[in-house]
């Protein structure tokens, strides 16, 4: 008998999602606000259940699903991001008649990500990947009357399909050479794959598939356009949540299943990590749209996390895993701030264009002091300044890189961090040192709550990192068998 309690978070989210869809049919647009509260409540319940099962280690459904420290850690990341997005979206979707679809898609995409985190079989993994992707394609195009949103969604969809095809191609090679899709099974039979040139091709195909989600250069090109065009709350979900799906998949498939091929993919990740962080940071400097700048910053951050695959010591893996959690809070928070600023600009002038332009951040400290302070913390966290989560994660990741002798890689990463400070500090300059162009505005409550929660996450991890490092170490242990 399977212990279904372990899947309770997914089951609850599925039920809540269906309930929202069904209820949405019967209530008027003005009352649809309540759906956001239901979704948030469901996510909180799922979060609590996941945390309560944090130290479980079991496989289910004939070994296709595994519940272990790694899966639980990533599920917490996914649910946290979705929760923050859901709370903020209560305001965003206000008065929209498609509110029910929005929250249903959000919950289903969360389930997809959670399935990927738990997948112990390539087929399960692919299904989770597709579930999450299809939902987010639709979410990115949620603003049906906004051509930019539609464009964002289309680009995302086309490149996403291409990447799915590549990933499936890679999976088929792996299956063909090892005769199984089960991840532990592949690990046992990977010898044949390693001996043949097909192994290399399979690895590159898989990296291309995962790299699309992670937004590694050169598979990142959809990301800036999509993050900029999509509704800001959805950008937060994509940059902070769905991106991590690529990492957990790569951890499971490459580190566990294809461990024998590690020389190949370590080299690949070394090249990709360096190109990704450098290109991300350099291009971010010349952006004037804050959303686009955050998109490139998100690309650069993926480059840092990818270092974990190059170093491959338990400490580095823990650092990479912790980074995904930290990044979830700081990036969600930053995008939500952009969303609030957009709200502010639109409330000044209904027909404003370029609502995510850097100029709109001028004097934000005067207009919305709490939001400006939160943004300052988020960008400082992204650039790795203590006492924030970003600092702790970078410290662990970079110091483990140095310890394992890859000093050159650490130097490149640190130089990149220094470079990134330029555009992060520029936002702070705009917010605090340039004159404001309007009066004080009070943040809508749902946005404020979501931003404060994200802020709390960033600061708690930064000031008291021990328990989080411990969890990340536990998760890393799953990978080191």
């Amino acid at each position, binding site marked *: 008998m399977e212990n279904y309690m372990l899947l309770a978070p997914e089951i609850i989210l599925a039920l809540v999602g269906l309930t929202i869809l069904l209820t949405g049919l019967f209530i008027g647009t003005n009352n649809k606000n309540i759906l956001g509260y239901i979704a948030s409540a469901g996510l909180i319940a799922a979060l609590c259940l996941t945390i309560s099962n944090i130290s479980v280690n079991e496989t289910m459904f004939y070994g296709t699903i595994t519940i272990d420290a790694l899966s639980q850690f990533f599920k917490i990341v996914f649910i946290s991001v979705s929760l923050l997005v859901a709370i903020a979206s209560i305001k965003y979707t206000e008065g929209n008649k498609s509110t029910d679809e929005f929250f249903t898609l959000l919950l289903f995409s969360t389930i997809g990500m959670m399935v990927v985190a738990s997948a112990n079989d390539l087929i399960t993994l692919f299904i989770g990947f597709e579930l999450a992707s299809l939902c987010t394609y639709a979410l990115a195009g949620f603003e049906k009357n906004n051509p930019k949103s539609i464009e964002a969604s289309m*680009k995302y969809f086309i490149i996403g399909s291409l990447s799915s095809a590549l990933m499936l191609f890679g999976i088929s090679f792996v299956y063909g050479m090892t005769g199984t899709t089960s991840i532990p099974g592949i690990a046992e039979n990977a010898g044949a794959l390693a001996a043949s040139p097909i192994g290399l091709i399979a*690895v*590159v195909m898989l990296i*291309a598939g995962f790299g699309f989600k992670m937004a590694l250069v050169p598979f990142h090109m*959809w990301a800036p*356009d999509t993050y900029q065009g999509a509704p800001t709350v959805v950008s937060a979900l994509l940059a902070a949540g769905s991106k991590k799906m690529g990492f957990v998949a790569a951890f499971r498939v490459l580190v566990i299943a294809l461990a024998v091929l590690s020389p190949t993919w370590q080299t690949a990740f070394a090249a990709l990590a360096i190109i990704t962080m450098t290109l991300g940071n350099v291009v971010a400097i010349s952006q004037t749209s804050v959303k686009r700048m955050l998109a490139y910053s998100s690309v650069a951050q993926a480059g840092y996390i990818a270092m974990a695959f190059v170093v491959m010591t338990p400490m580095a893996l823990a650092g990479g895993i912790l980074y995904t959690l930290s990044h979830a809070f700081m990036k969600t928070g930053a995008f939500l701030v952009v969303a609030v600023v957009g709200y502010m600009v639109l409330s000044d002038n209904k027909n404003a264009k370029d609502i995510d332009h850097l100029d709109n951040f001028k004097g934000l400290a005067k207009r919305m002091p709490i939001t400006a302070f939160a943004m300052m913390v988020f960008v400082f966290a992204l650039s790795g300044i203590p006492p924030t989560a970003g600092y702790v994660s970078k410290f662990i990741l970079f110091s483990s890189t140095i310890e394992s002798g890859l000093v050159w890689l650490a130097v490149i990463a640190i130089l990149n961090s220094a470079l990134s400070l330029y555009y992060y500090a520029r936002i702070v300059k705009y917010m605090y040192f340039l004159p404001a162009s309007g009066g004080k505005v009070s943040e809508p409550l749902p946005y404020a709550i979501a931003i404060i929660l994200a802020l709390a996450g960033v600061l708690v991890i930064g000031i008291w990192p021990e328990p989080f490092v411990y969890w990340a170490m536990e998760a890393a242990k799953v990978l080191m068998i």
Partner: protein
Amino acid sequence: MAIDSLAFLIPLLPALAFVITFFFGKKMYSGGALIPIGAIAISCIISILITINLLQNPEVVVHQSYPWFAIFNLGILIDPLAGVMLCMVTFVSLLIHIYAVGYMSHDPAKPRYFAETALFTAAMLGVVLSDNILQLFICWELVGLCSYLLIGFWYQKPSAAAAAKKAFLTTRVGDVMFLTGIIILFSSIFTIYNGNLPEGIYVLQFNEMFKLIPELSAMHTTILGSEVSMLTIITLLFFGGAVGKSGQFPLHVWLPDAMEGPTTVSALIHAATMVTAGVYLVARTFPMFMGAPDALIVVAYVGGFTALFASTMGIVMNDIKRVLAFSTISQLGYMMLGLGMGAVVGMEAVGVSMFHLINHAFFKALLFLCAGSVIHSVGTQDMRQMGGVGKVMPITFITMLVASLALAGFGIPGTQIGTSGFFSKDAIIETTYLFGEHTGNYIPYIFGIVAALLTSIYIFRLLFMTFTGKARTDYGGHESPSSMTVPLSILAVLALIFGALTQTKFYRFLDETFINNFVHVNIGDLAELGNYHLVHGHHGEPLLILWMPIIVGVAGLLISFLIYYLKVVDMSKIVSRNNFVFKLLYNRYYQHHIFIEVISLQLTYGLSLVGEFIDRKIIDGIIDGISDGTIAIGEIIRKIQTGVVQSYATAVIAGVGLLIILLKLIVEVQ
């Protein structure tokens, strides 16, 4: 014990009060003053309860330590030494906060004032509570920052801004020495353990540091041809930090200028608490000083010289707060002198010196608050424009008189009758005599006794010039509100009776700090390492020696009475004549000029010109080049992002192809 588990609240509550008052003080009563007052009151109660517990069971110290980031421990240590400091800091701070409600009532920036004093209190409590030297240093720096902010509280005044800068830069010299000391200490410990620091213990914790004193003392290094113990270097660097913070010669120059801040700040920071941090540091690490040859002698000489040197300048100042500032420097010199006497009396020196520290905190806070009360009412700080203030401000006059008697150390030797300053200052002077008796070196004693005479002269000069005689200008003063006079009265009572009540108990209590306790040390062994010969059972100094301090005290009173009350000698003639001694003293021995004109302007300015050239032309050139280059590259690369989805798909496929080729090449090479 339940109360021990609340110890962490002692610094935390004022820190929280800082945050709340800083951000939300504007809308509250009196700029949110009640929040720091409440927080510090609770801290004070907890401190007193813990200290009472310690009084009953001195060996049950409060010690909690939490590792944070592997190289740094957050810890709390409350032993008798820390306990008495905690009570003093919280209590004085509480009274001054209450007083400030009245004193600062007309200032528009009250929230900032109360927030910063609350932060200062938190930082100072952090210094006292720290169980390791690194945490102590961090709080020490925070204290320095608060001092900077509060001296420059009226930053619109150029003199205040300059004074703040001067204080910050001067104490920084000491701070750098302190930090260097910590670094040398850590690297020496690293060497002792051969690079393998033991797991589970934190080597910079005081008790762990003290365990290593024999090893540290055995390490030597050669400086200028003579062999010096590592421990001496470390302790002298620590003392360098103390010299900066506690205003000892030659780094005392910032303290008189620090009087530019509000008088309450002067009372809290630059008289009662922060400046004693240096003395506390030496007391805290006293076992290390005991084990370090020559270190205590240096402490004694610097302290004794400062006591004398500062009191000479106190005689000629006309600004009421400056007189008190020089008095503070001089009294801090006494405390250092007392600590230096550990060379003959061992750990008892800590008791003697700390006793003076506590008493000084009470009577000096009182002196400053009385001065503040006068300034608040009269509206000037210049004593030449006062006179006869005693008639309009009777409470202030009486409390000021009590404080002056305490500072001058009036009392009857051999009995339990006397002001608090009498018991503590005389104890220090007696130990210096003992030092002279056993080493044949009477210089510290002469420093002590001459400074006592001068102390009495300058404080009664202040009293007569301010409170007696006829009003020299039309200032129209009034007695201060009760929120100001009540703290004055409380402090006056303490200045009067605290010494008599607690003297013997206090010494015994503080002796427990290092004996049979958490930081357990064997004083005899340490003194042997440090090459000091301790004297035991010393009582029965000649009667003249016992009476000497009080004789010079009365002499000082008489001199001031004759000159400033009866006006036997016309002081203005001496002053107006181009009297060399007067000019030398009034210009503070031209030390300021030497620092500013020779060291800062000639030496530093020359160096900074060179530095500026390198920075502007070479380093900035490189940096600007890199940044321009990077931005230009960014502009080029962003053009790759065409927005055409076909080219994105091409990039994906090309990426896959390139990766395969790249990996194929690398794998084949390997």
